[in-house]
């Protein structure tokens, strides 16, 4: 009884076809995923493994037990455990990429960060002693802060009601905010750039402006907020 059952289980487990069942408890259903439904996401952070057993909370202990029993997906090719890999920078690089040319996108981003550093260092050396403390030289911090400053708080959705399309204001999810900030930055640099300037120059310029809460991307964010405020009357059309 045990042997044929084990054989059957193994045979069924070997099938890689997409699941045809609608719902089952405790499993994430994904269409067309080459991984099975029980695969968990990998965690690349080295510090997670350094914690001794006593410091873990109850939830983390159950998480660990869960992880020991499930297979884990393979890590993506643009993710490493080194201090230099940043998920925001990776996302930004991917959004910058055209036609699969990751090499070009990545070189633009590295040149941008280098450009930011150079400009900030110039300012640093020309400034007096008191001002030097306030000048931020770390390009990563400037990048993150600039993107955070560009994120809108409230967004507009087009809702069709009674034949007319209304612009309904609605709060945005975190993912959507980050996406919009990056998208606006990239489109702004692509469209309003002199054809003789390099992309990384224009990008570093825009990022520094956004870091100081000025510039066209911040203006676009404020425009979005004003639109939302203007269409306040239709806020009740939102059903989610």
């Amino acid at each position: 009884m045990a042997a044929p059952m084990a054989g059957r289980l193994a045979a069924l487990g070997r099938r890689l076809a997409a699941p045809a069942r609608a719902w089952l408890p405790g499993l994430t259903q994904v269409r067309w995923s080459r991984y099975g439904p029980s695969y968990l996401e990998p965690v690349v952070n080295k510090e997670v493994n350094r914690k001794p057993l006593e410091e873990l909370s109850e939830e983390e202990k159950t998480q660990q037990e869960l992880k020991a029993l499930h297979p884990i997906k393979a890590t993506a090719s643009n993710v490493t455990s080194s201090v230099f890999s940043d998920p925001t920078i990776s996302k930004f690089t991917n959004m910058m990429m055209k036609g699969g040319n990751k090499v070009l996108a990545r070189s633009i981003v590295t040149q941008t960060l280098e450009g930011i550093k150079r400009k900030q260092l110039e300012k640093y050396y020309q400034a007096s002693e008191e001002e030097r403390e306030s000048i931020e030289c770390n390009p990563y911090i400037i990048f993150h802060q600039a993107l955070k400053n560009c994120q809108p708080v409230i967004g507009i959705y087009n809702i069709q009601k009674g034949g007319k399309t209304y612009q309904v204001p609605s709060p945005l999810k975190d993912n959507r905010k980050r996406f919009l900030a990056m998208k606006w930055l990239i489109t702004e640099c692509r469209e309003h750039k002199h054809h003789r300037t390099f992309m990384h120059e224009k990008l570093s310029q825009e990022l520094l402006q956004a870091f100081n809460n000025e510039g066209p991307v911040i203006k676009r964010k404020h425009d979005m907020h004003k639109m939302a405020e203007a269409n306040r009357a239709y806020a009740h059309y939102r059903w989610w």
Partner: protein
Amino acid sequence: MAAAVRRVVRASRAWSAALRAREAPGAQTLRLIYTTTTVQKRNVAALGPEKYTEAFIKNQIEEFNLGKRHLANMMGEDPETFTQEDIDKAIAYLFPSGLFEKRARPIMKEIYGKLLDIQKYQDHLRAQGLLAENRKKINLIGSRWLIKEELEDMLVEKLSDHDYSTCIQLLERLVTLPCCGIEEEYVLKFRRELAIQLKKMVIEPLQYDEQGVAFSTGEGKRKTSRATAVVYDHGSGKITVNGVDYLCYFPVMQDREQLMFPFQFLDRLGIHDMVCTVSGGGRSSQAGAIRLASARALCSFISENEVEFMRQAGLLTPDPRIKERKKPGQEGARRKFTWKKR
């Protein structure tokens, strides 16, 4: 049991069984991201009208006789001399509302009964004000629900997929109650132990070459690339790929980061030397193949805990993603032909 009676049983098409061998974690994770539309529904029209072949009729007669013997056993009669009138009397006794009364269908009374018992117990505690202290939950980590075949074996009756999923839903609902611990052994009958993933991996022991230097080999693949890596101890972090230095073979920074990844994760960057060969695929998939090969080779040098950390970081899983095939009627795997109105 119902199949034993003179009822034509339709062969129900089994659903894709890819989900059978799955492990369900604790009741917390009920994340439904997408409900597929590619469910294999019974296309009755495509089957054609019911064909009464010889084999089909013989099958039905055999099932009927088997069911008749089961029924006789149940009634305590002799299976050999069980006539049609006895069958009718037995059915009238067992199913007073008849066989086809919808409201008299058995619906997992046992499990539902347990659920009602737990709720009664909870109400009892709540009335006395003792509910908050007496919460007893069942620990579901490390086990999975029975698959449909196992449940059929346990109940000695055929189940439809709908019945099976209703049964599992009811059990899940039972498990979410705060005082379900009182029926723990009953619920655990429906669970099977999950094997710890790490035990399924085989770790090769270290080998030693002529100079006494320890080395280990590993193989890796990604898309169409195949790589073999030999990792030597007491090295200085030199990596040779296909006879060429890694800086020349992988001019792109991302690929070199991938090569370094397993070593950097274990803080063993300058300790090991590596010689690898790789063929097939493009630059990114070759880098991924070497990463897997070196991670596997490194397993021989490190402790079991570190192997588990590497596995949880996703370094030891071969990436199953491959190029999706082109479908007929489309231009590519996903891209459709330009839509023309006329």
